[in-house]
């Protein structure tokens, strides 16, 4: 019996789409909501984007059960890294349609080499809740002044097509970027704890 709101809403969404939920998508949901990190091993064309994105949304709904359909400007919640900027378009569209269906008032953002300077500034000023990007763009974000602010609210980082990046120097860039983000979060956490004493 599901007793969290987020998961119920996602299940309903599957039903209205008349899509069958695969066992691994359920397993992914359980693992994510239990706080695990890890690896999703799934081939292209298996519904892996949804398998990853929907548990994240369920978690967000659980954090904000009463106002998830109204809350805006939450800061960057999800950073989604793909090896090819050409891949961002389709993922962006798929994600946008889900949040639209669920009445979550977000605009899914993307930051790649093709993004204009003005848009990059806008992302820095007011980050979208979900941002699709490449390993290079992540490093460019880290090369900006006061970048830690951008990542303050970050809940999840997804590395899509990790097998393509592993074994390349771009993969090493991802490792370094993740180590930076992890430290930022840890630092923020310990500062928060210090404040509460």
């Amino acid at each position, binding site marked *: 019996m599901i007793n969290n709101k987020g998961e119920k809403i996602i299940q309903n969404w599957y039903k209205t789409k008349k899509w069958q939920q695969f066992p691994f998508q359920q397993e992914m949901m359980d693992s994510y909501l239990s706080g695990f990190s890890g690896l999703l091993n799934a081939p292209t064309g298996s519904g892996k984007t949804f398998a990853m994105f929907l548990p994240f949304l369920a978690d967000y709904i659980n954090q904000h059960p009463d106002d998830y359909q109204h809350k805006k400007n939450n800061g960057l919640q999800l950073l989604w890294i793909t090896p090819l900027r050409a891949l961002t378009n389709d993922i962006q569209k798929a994600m946008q349609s889900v949040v639209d269906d669920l009445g979550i008032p977000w605009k899914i953002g993307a930051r790649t080499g093709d993004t204009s300077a003005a848009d990059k500034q806008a992302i820095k000023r007011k980050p979208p809740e979900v941002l699709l990007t490449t390993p290079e763009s992540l490093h460019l974000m880290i090369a900006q*002044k006061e970048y830690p602010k951008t990542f303050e609210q970050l809940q999840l980082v997804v590395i899509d097509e990790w097998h393509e990046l592993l074994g390349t120097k771009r993969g090493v860039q991802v490792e*370094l970027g993740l180590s930076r983000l992890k430290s930022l979060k840890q630092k923020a956490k310990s500062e928060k704890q210090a404040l509460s004493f």
Partner: protein
Amino acid sequence: MKIWGISATIGNLEQAVQVLLGANFPEEKTKMVRAKIAKKLDIQSIIPENVEKYSWAGHIGLKLLPEVMQIVADSKTTLIFTNTRAQSEIWYHAILDSYPEYAGVIAMHHGSLDNELRSWVEQALHAAILKVVVCTSSLDLGVDFRPVDTVIQIGSPKGVARFMQRAGRSGHSPDATSKAYFVPTHSLELLEGAALKYGIKNEIFESRDPILLAYDVLIQYLVTLAVSDGFKAEATYKEIISTFAYADLTRKEFHELLEFITRGGKSLSAYDEFLKVEIEEGLFKVNDKRVAMRHRLSMGTITGDVNVRVKFQSGGSLGSVEEGFIARLKAGDTFWFAGRSLEFIQLKEMTAYVKISKKKKGQIASWAGSRMPLSSQLSAVFREKLDEVSMGLEEDEEIVALRPLFERQMQQSHLPNKFEFLIEKVETRDGFHYFFFPFEGRLVHEGLSSLFAYRMTKLKSATFSIAMNDYGFELLTDEEMPLELAIEDGLFSDKHLLDDIQHSLNANEMARRKFRDIAHIAGLVFTGYPGKPMKNKHLQSSTSLLFDVFNEYESDNLLVRQAYNEALAFQLEEFRMRAALQRIQGQKHIIKTTDGPSPFAFPVMVDRLSREKLSTETVEDRVARMVRNLEKD
């Protein structure tokens, strides 16, 4: 904060999680979720009607065009995968030539085409407007194209995982069967079709080995941190060694890297353009705005040849080709690119201006670095399959079809089982040819061939010309060599391997080439401002100069060391080479003198011809003539 990776199946999934999450991530917080979707996969090899008459050594596969087009006609939407961008151009051109009715429903997709063009192709695939798309690895990744129900692979995909990925691009509804066809480009490659099926059935997937201690990437990263808010040495060191890649980075190495970004290291301290980062009260920081801007512009790890945009004189961009290819063209020359015949007009500021040409013949734009070696997993299955043939146990239809070829091999030379190592000797008017067949993939053969040549010249001085493919390699020389003596003397030994490699393969030259990329990534050379890139020539000479300076005055320099390591590990796959030598030592060595190139040797010889000549056409003609001569026997 949670971290999740998404990955297709590879040989080292467990390690992939470790690399992603880092050295210290608590195991009890880690999980692997596997989709375990048993996708129905139907793989078929296209078997040429007459294997013996089918090109022994082509590399384009066009002879099977009618069979391929029959499959296309019977399918809804087909993706035709080729291994190189040039091969895509050739196939696209050939289809339109012989099947003009496909105009409008055929398209091409590869990495050098303009973004807009590629997006259009992708949209048209989604919308089921296209019947067939000729493509390269550029369509390996990404979302599904639902209309695609058939995938055709031209030539060896070189690895099980890659073929699996490509095959999975067809048949997307959960209960649909993925249909994939393998089209060999020469007869012996048909055996790879059987090996691929076996590899997929038994889930023998290639591993992706993580890169360790890439100092160049780390230097770039440190400057990145210095450009934004600055960093403190100790905290950053701890953070860096929490990654898988730098878990073994010593404090001494880290200190050297800091020296490098602040004072240009030992050799470059006199040149202020290498002094990037300043230290203020323990904070490493870039204050110079110009340095910061240059750094932001040149970040990234993707290097490679400088590309030239291809544009119509009248406006409109088509994509890009390598500077080296354009440099060979004269005004008025015709070449094929983006599926069109183009006349080269002029090169101006890294843009090649062209107009549509009416000529039917022309060079095909070529790109370097597109020849993948056979993976070690697929090589191993290939040797197993060959062993089955030698025992008369073959069952796969591909191998059964190859029987005439194997019979000829047996008649002319020998068919080795897995306990045997075959060497063929043949004398032609070109000289004495020595063919070795380790079946280990092109990259390993590149190393082994130079090593063997070097070791033989220790007994008798000679000059060799070397050729290879994924199955074996050829050493050609003017005089007969004491082969048996060389074997006794340790030709296949793995002792002194590193030393012998250094001597045999201009290791210096290879490291120098690797250093070029490393210098880019580490920011030692500036590649130019957007729209005004520096010419490749200039970059090459400046990185070369730096390499010499380091080599001479600072041979323990970390970046130089990295260059040598990369040359050994990636370029030569030293590890696989050693394993191959150990295997060969334990095998029975069969030396056969033949009166002409055997079916195994022939494709290797063709490799030499295609290297000597630039235009593919003349090679095709020459091969055709060689085949005619063979068939006369």
